[in-house]
């Protein structure tokens, strides 16, 4: 308590810098407090609403029901199996989709003629809702892991190709001119100039793909799977266990946030020294 009081105690009036820091700190604390209060208010309101009969627990469950289901599923041990399954599928399709898109972009950068040929196909594939390809994946790859991965990759690979290709083309022409004057080959240009200068765009693509890969994998699991968070959502819906649906939703939200934060951390590490022009 004493430590907390010290944190809030205003410093000496004469020390302008200390007062500035103190005001900044107060602001940070007030924002955090407001965020936590909002969360508690929402959860508390939900729970109280259910207990007082304002909210139908059959449709909207309640925080206590979700929490007890969570504890039950953890003690039974199958929740981690579902989380692991979905997280693995998402991670693999996210990585393959991003890497695949970058490789395709590299190939069409190296062969401009091919880029022109493929241009309309890429535009059409990009405009198309990839989840509509689901039935095709199931008939070609079977109702399982392969189809789910295919969905996750399909949804990320085209947009990555387009973003990376335009990033490769937007490289500072002075850098290219200089490297050419040094006698650089096409391959030198790519690995020393073009790829490194496109890393900020690659990170941006990663950030978008984290979200997209979750969409692909969850939809994939809706269609075919026998395990995973998407499966739990659709199963919970079919047996009208909305507590299970909401629990799975929360877990998806938390896992997706963790992956996004991991990419944000990567961004901070990789782009430490770049300035924005």
């Amino acid at each position, binding site marked *: 308590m004493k430590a907390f009081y010290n944190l809030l105690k205003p410093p000496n009036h004469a020390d302008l810098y200390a007062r500035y820091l103190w005001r900044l700190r107060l602001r940070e604390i007030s924002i955090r407090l407001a965020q936590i209060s909002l969360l508690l208010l929402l959860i508390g309101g939900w729970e109280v609403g259910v207990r007082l009969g304002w909210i139908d627990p059959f449709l909207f469950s309640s925080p206590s029901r979700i929490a007890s289901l969570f504890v039950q599923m953890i003690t039974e041990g199958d929740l981690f199996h579902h989380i692991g399954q979905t997280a693995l599928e998402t991670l693999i399709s996210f990585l393959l989709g991003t890497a695949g898109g970058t490789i395709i972009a590299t190939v069409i950068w190296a062969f401009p003629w091919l880029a022109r040929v493929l241009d309309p196909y890429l535009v059409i594939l990009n405009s198309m809702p990839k989840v509509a390809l689901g039935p095709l994946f199931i008939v070609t790859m079977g109702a399982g892991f392969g189809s789910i991965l295919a969905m996750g990759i399909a949804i990320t690979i085209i947009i990555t190709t387009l973003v990376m290709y335009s990033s490769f083309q937007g490289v500072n022409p002075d850098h290219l001119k200089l*490297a050419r004057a*040094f006698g650089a080959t096409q391959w*030198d240009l790519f690995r020393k100039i073009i790829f*490194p200068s496109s890393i900020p765009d690659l990170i941006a693509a990663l950030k978008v793909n984290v979200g997209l890969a979750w969409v692909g994998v969850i939809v994939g699991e809706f269609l075919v799977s026998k395990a995973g968070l998407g499966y739990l959502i659709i199963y919970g819906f079919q047996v009208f266990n909305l507590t299970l649906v909401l629990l799975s939703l929360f877990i998806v939200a938390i896992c997706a946030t963790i992956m996004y934060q991991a990419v944000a951390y990567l961004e901070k590490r990789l782009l430490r020294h770049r300035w924005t022009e």
Partner: protein
Amino acid sequence: MVASSAIQLDNVSKTYISRHNQVTAIRAVSFCVKPGEFIALVGPSGCGKSTVLSLIAGLLQPDEGEIRLFGEMVKGPSLRTGYMLQHDGLLEWRTVAENIALGLEIRKEINKQRLKQAHALLHELGLGHADQYYPSQLSGGMRQRVALVRTLALEPDILLLDEPFSAIDYQNKLFLEGLLNAILQRNEMTAVLVTHDLEEALAMSDRVFILGGQPGAIQRIIQLPEEIRALKPLEARSHPLFRPLFHELWQEIQQPHSFHKEDIR
């Protein structure tokens, strides 16, 4: 064959062709630069100064005529030339030390000894302490000095400078001019400077080539007197003969030139 010229252009023409038009940048340009000589190319925008430089650097191929460096035909970027641009072109993701090694890496000439020489040069230019910094931590003048080290690390015989000092402040510009002048003389390098700054052209070079017209051609050559050439760039600016030369150059550039539009369809 013993070559008496460092750079020799023989009847060189270059036309840029795009879908909508074709523009002849330079027509039938011929000149020689002796080893160790410093020439400046001046003239209005669009007279083909930078085209001449890119041709010498081997970044462009002439449509007609030929270019020789120390007697050898230019067919692509030569190991004997070093090229510097208005923008330093430092790679933001590399440290200063990594940036100055870029040219050596690309030419596969990287070794301990060459890197040591490059670092010695960095020291000489007052940036010895900065080799682990990133470009975003340096000022404009410091960045251009790093770019200079990167070019000189390749030990070129011919230095090609495309307005290298036009984006930095006046004080740094004078400082860098003096530094470059000293390095060129010590290493007996040949240099071609493209600039808009007439004072800079006169203060640094042995001869000033005035390009004009469209397509561009050499309109006149001003030979700097020995008294001025012997001086450092800063001192040259205050020599009594400097002002009259400046006015002469200014008059020459002001003259209207004949325009040839026949190439634009």
